């Protein structure tokens, strides 16, 4: 089960500006000062090994969309943020005119999690089957609403694919084409749901748009159980801790530090910071990752936790 990130940003899509690109280039040139490179390969090796990730890459700006790649023919996707557009391009290219079957699991229906669907190419292809799973009663209504006039030129009923909405019950496991999936209620405006996916002995938890009240031990233990021994936990780490519990308390999001603590409690193997704050630039996001890694080192018991930050294009194998 491979995890492929198509959209990792929270709230609203963002893009690097021309000033951002110029700044990265200028900083790279300063760090390379005095060096000469005989070939593109030499320059590439220098950039890859000696420069910070935030200089040579960008975390990207699409809103949440994460694909779970399994051996079968069907597709498995968490959320339909703006990352669903490039995912759709990928599916159309891979299918080569054969209709696809796509299983979608929705954390909730806030705009940043559904905005990619009108641009999801396979939805326009007759014969394609799209099953949208979720625990919200308003699931179908939300998808139809955003494609209603005057918001979008193509109405939901004009889409070529056969689209089915599948209501799930929290904490109940389901089998979907060989993948076991269990939803879990999370604290967020209008509720959100995390999903634990299990396949062939590996487990991936997708837990975004989820605030954790630190004073509530039962809540923490419930999430530790949900994350228990997971190979990968994709976690809403939108803010630094001080921000998450002060000016942005009750905004429905969490922090890198709480992600480390819950994964340590759960003895999960790999924490992936996700749903990045759109106001944070690449250097700030890399700083939050380094801080989370250092916190893990400082507080590590007998269980080491790997910590990464998701970026658009990242692929992970549990």
């Amino acid at each position: 089960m491979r995890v492929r990130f198509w959209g990792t940003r929270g709230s609203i899509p963002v893009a690097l500006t021309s000033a951002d690109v110029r700044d990265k280039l200028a900083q790279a040139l300063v760090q390379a000062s005095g060096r000469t490179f005989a070939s593109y390969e030499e320059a590439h090796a220098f950039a890859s090994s000696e420069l910070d990730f935030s200089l040579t890459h960008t975390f990207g700006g699409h809103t949440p969309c994460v694909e779970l790649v399994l051996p079968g023919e069907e597709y498995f996707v968490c959320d339909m943020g703006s990352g669903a557009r490039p995912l759709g391009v990928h599916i159309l290219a891979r299918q080569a005119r054969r209709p696809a079957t796509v299983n979608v699991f929705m954390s909730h229906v806030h705009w940043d999690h559904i905005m990619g669907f009108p641009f999801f190419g396979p939805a326009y292809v007759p014969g394609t089957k799209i099953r949208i799973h979720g625990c919200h009663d308003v699931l179908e209504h939300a998808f139809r609403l955003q494609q209603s006039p005057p918001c979008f030129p193509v109405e939901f009923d004009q889409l070529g694919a056969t689209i089915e909405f599948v209501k799930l019950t929290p904490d109940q496991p389901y089998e979907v084409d060989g993948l076991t999936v269990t939803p879990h209620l999370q604290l967020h405006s209008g509720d959100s749901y995390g999903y634990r996916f299990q396949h062939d002995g590996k487990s991936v938890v997708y837990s975004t748009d989820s605030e954790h009240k630190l004073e509530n031990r039962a809540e923490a233990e419930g999430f530790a159980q949900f994350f228990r021994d997971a190979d990968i936990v994709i976690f809403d780490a939108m803010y630094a801790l001080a921000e998450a519990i002060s000016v942005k308390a009750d905004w429905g999001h969490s922090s890198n530090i709480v992600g480390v603590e819950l994964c340590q409690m759960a003895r999960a193997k790999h924490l992936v910071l996700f749903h990045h704050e759109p106001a944070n630039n690449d250097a700030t996001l890399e700083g939050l990752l380094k801080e989370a890694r250092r916190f893990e080192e400082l507080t590590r018991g007998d269980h080491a936790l790997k910590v990464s930050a998701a970026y658009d294009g990242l692929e992970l194998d549990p």
Partner: protein
Amino acid sequence: MNVSSRRYSTAVVLQVSGRLDQDTCDAFRGQLMGHVDSAAREAGAVVLDLSALEYVSSAGLRCFMLASRQAKAQHGRIFVAQLQPMVAEIFQISHFNLVFQVFPTVREALGAVSAEAAAAYEKA
């Protein structure tokens, strides 16, 4: 986790020792809020002496945040002093150094409260 208090003029120094985490934060919060409330009513200040604090988790940091918010709401003041290296690093990592004025020593924190508080500390 243990808390002991000493008064220096209008300042109360709370020495927090041990580990401050989900198991201990409720008891700590009750004591801390009481001192913050008293200090604000007396136009004084609270200084948290963290020289004996071994570890603080996010739940413990939340207690500090609640105390800071209550102090601000009541026009009171709260300072943090003498953090052990690990706790100092956790303050930085969690960005709590942007929320609190952190002083290297209790003496310096009391100096920020008032000359009288610092003088009382030196006499003690």
